[in-house]
């Protein structure tokens, strides 16, 4: 038994020691490689920047892109030739450094410089490499390639990226979705949102970052998704419509809201509140009587966001005579409801209802902290 234990121990020890040595060697190699890459990147950066900024003899960028690209090609030719005359290892490290330098640069440039950079990326043959990496066996390489093609606006990657929306790894799906929107803009929004089977909060944050800056032009696409009732992405789309703030979608939301499942209906009510269109008032008022407390709270919040003066008596009634969670929500809604809402809150604070006073104070307090004043001075005023 003991001999067996000793043999097992020795074997494990050998494996662990070998792994340790291997890892350390790998680390040393990686450090050395990174150092060389860094040096080469700096070198290429110095050579590359003037080429991107150089004034060309005749400015064809706006008029004739073919002639313009011919001139740009002429600029980059010497650098490409220098690779042809170097050793295989040096060429490999050089290309790696050049590609990394270009990708880093793509984060900071736009306009004509970006156009030249994208051309150079293709000219040095990196687009093929990126598309190859999009089809890699390793998910992290695919995910990283998605980011890189988005940075360089590689339109050739669109078919592969579309396939990657069904990737088994969520990280790849997120990157592919965001890359498609970054590359194809508004046109990609509808296909991406109808294709995805699930949008987590994290994916939502990533997509929002790409979609919200598009503003009003994207509203039609998202409304289209909502109309087709693609349920997995419905909540996200409704939230987006609320954030985009275009009241033209209110009729669509009011039309679909009654038929939605509870959670999506709740999101819809909040979005309607955010949109701030007074035509939503009757619907939100109805929702304040809903049998589910969760929905009632959402409706109260929406009422606060709506900022309609007609809602104040309703909110005051809830703040004085509902369960405590709804009272707090009503007080918050009054707080958000503009000056008249805050006046109503002060009235609640001055009332005889101890709970209503405490609930009102919860939000009024923020006001005197911000105003650097005291409660007494605030209420005297």
């Amino acid at each position, binding site marked *: *038994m*003991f001999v067996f*234990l*000793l043999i*097992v*121990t020795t074997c*494990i*020890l050998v494996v*662990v020691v070998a792994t*340790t040595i291997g*890892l*350390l060697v790998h*680390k040393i190699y990686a450090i050395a490689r990174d150092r060389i890459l860094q040096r080469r990147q700096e070198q290429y950066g110095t050579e590359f920047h003037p080429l991107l900024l150089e004034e060309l003899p005749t400015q064809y960028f706006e008029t004739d892109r073919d002639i313009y690209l011919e001139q740009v090609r002429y600029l980059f030719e010497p650098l490409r030739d220098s690779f042809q005359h170097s050793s295989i290892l040096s060429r490999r490290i050089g290309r790696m450094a050049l590609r990394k330098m270009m990708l880093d640069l793509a984060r900071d440039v736009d306009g004509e410089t970006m156009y030249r950079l994208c051309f150079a990326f293709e000219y040095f043959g990196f687009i093929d490499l990126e598309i190859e990496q999009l089809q890699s066996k390793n998910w*992290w390489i695919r995910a*990283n390639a998605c*980011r890189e093609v988005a940075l360089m606006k590689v339109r050739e990657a669109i078919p592969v990226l579309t396939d990657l929306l069904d990737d088994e790894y*969520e*990280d790849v799906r997120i990157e592919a979705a965001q890359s498609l929107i970054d590359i194809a803009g508004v046109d990609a929004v509808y296909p991406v949102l109808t294709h995805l089977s699930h949008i*987590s*909060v*994290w994916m*939502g*944050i*990533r997509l*929002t*970052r790409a979609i919200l800056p598009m503003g009003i032009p994207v509203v039609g696409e998202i409304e289209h998704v909502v109309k087709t009732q693609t349920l997995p992405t419905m909540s996200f789309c409704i*939230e987006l419509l609320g*954030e985009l703030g275009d009241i033209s979608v209110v009729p669509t939301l009011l039309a679909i809201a009654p038929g939605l499942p509870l959670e999506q209906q709740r999101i819809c009510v909040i979005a309607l509140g955010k949109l701030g269109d007074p035509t939503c008032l009757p619907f939100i008022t109805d929702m304040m009587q809903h049998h589910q407390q969760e929905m009632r709270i959402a409706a109260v919040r929406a009422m606060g966001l709506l900022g309609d003066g007609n809602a104040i008596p309703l909110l005051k009634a809830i703040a004085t005579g509902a369960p*405590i969670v709804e009272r*707090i929500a009503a007080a918050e809604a009054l707080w958000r409801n503009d000056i008249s809402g805050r006046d109503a809150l002060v009235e609640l604070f001055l009332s005889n209802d101890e709970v209503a*006073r*405490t*609930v009102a*104070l*919860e939000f009024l*307090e*923020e006001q005197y*902290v*911000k105003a*650097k004043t005291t409660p007494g001075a605030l209420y005297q005023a």
Partner: protein
Amino acid sequence: MSILLSILDFLSDAFTRFVIFYFASINLVYFLMLLFSFLSIRFYLRRNLLCDYRIIVQSEFTTPVSVLAPAYNESVNISESVHSLLKLNYSTMEVIVINDGSKDDTLNILIQHFHLRKTRRLYVAHLPTQPVRGIYTSQKAEYKNLVVVDKVNGGKADALNVGINVSRYPLFCAIDADSILEDDALLKATKPFMEDDTTIAVGGIVRIANGCTVQRGRVTDVALSGKFLPVFQVVEYFRAFLTGRMAWSAANALLIISGAFGIFKKNVVLEVGGYKHDTVGEDMELVIRLHRLMRETKRPYRIIFVPDPVCWTEAPETLSMLRRQRNRWHRGLLDTLLIHRTILFNPKYGMVGLFAAPYFLFYELLGPVIEGMGYIVVIAMLLLGTLNTDILLLFFIVSVVYGMMFSVGAVILEEISFHRYPRTMDLVRLIGHAFIENFGYRQLTAFWRIQAIIDYARGVKHWGPMQRKGFASHGQH
């Protein structure tokens, strides 16, 4: 006489066989855990290395967090810790400091330092707690996210329950008031909640700040302490967090989320009734209750350990303080396992019942007892003249090699993944301590843990006082 000797001989032989089996199994388990941890950390790094956490800060969709910091006699560190919490990089958060009836001037320091004023803020007792004496908020706009609750002393669990009652947001982060979170710790720790709606709790890594330079509530230079005890604890923490928790997390059977840094979904914690008051292992007890709730109600869930959101804490530097800490931890472990004994070997609880809980019972809880018995048997065999010194020596060498292998493995795991100790000399010292901890330190902690079991049997339930040196005095580089 000869019958007695043959019985003793039989017993010692049986015990030797048991020890060899135990030794082989524990080392196999540790080896598997090291392997799983390595794979998990590699997967984690691939997922998160290029992640841009700034988008969480900038997004409207980010889930807001309430940070709960219970404080009991923390006057030495409190202002620095709260400053560090208020400067955390996160979009929507509030910091709730719960003064648990401190006998020192913790509350006064907070009131003066942060210009606090007593408010009549609403307090809804979702969880029953000791009475709340007052809720304070700051008059200064820069501290508008700070809430201080003063309450009657009721222990850490009670203070956390008060914090949960006061909190406004759907996630809460429980930390120790004497610890320092890194700027991006909340961002990294909340990401799993946003990625997967079934995530109900996330634990972050706790690292030892002794020896580091701390300026304005931030760890600005990471280094090892010049003293032995904190460095031994650094190695222990690597083993516990990078190896142990990472592996259990991969199997969704993580039983401990450190009380120093854990994030929880508030509604689920409310559903299980919050922290339990009458145990010193309230952090582990809560996590096991969460596992039980989710498995008993057959709901999908995940309890995760994330290895890079860092919480820096002050480790005990004296033997007496360390003894108290270890004693408390071990009593907490024993108490929790006794409370939840029904999950042991119960297939209804899956990995938790079949593997994680038995692991904690046999290797973490009873390990020191078996080690202690081993020393007694060796002495007895020596006295009886039946000791085979060659075998004993060989066993000792093998056990030291194994012990060192796992410690060095954890140090290497840290070095190849997060590489937080930039000085080569610190790495050498860590490996050196991983070797010498086997000669005295390990035996001492085993002895303290046996003492903890005896204390528990005698009914000792208190935490025991802890004295803080304060971060300001650390790291004189």
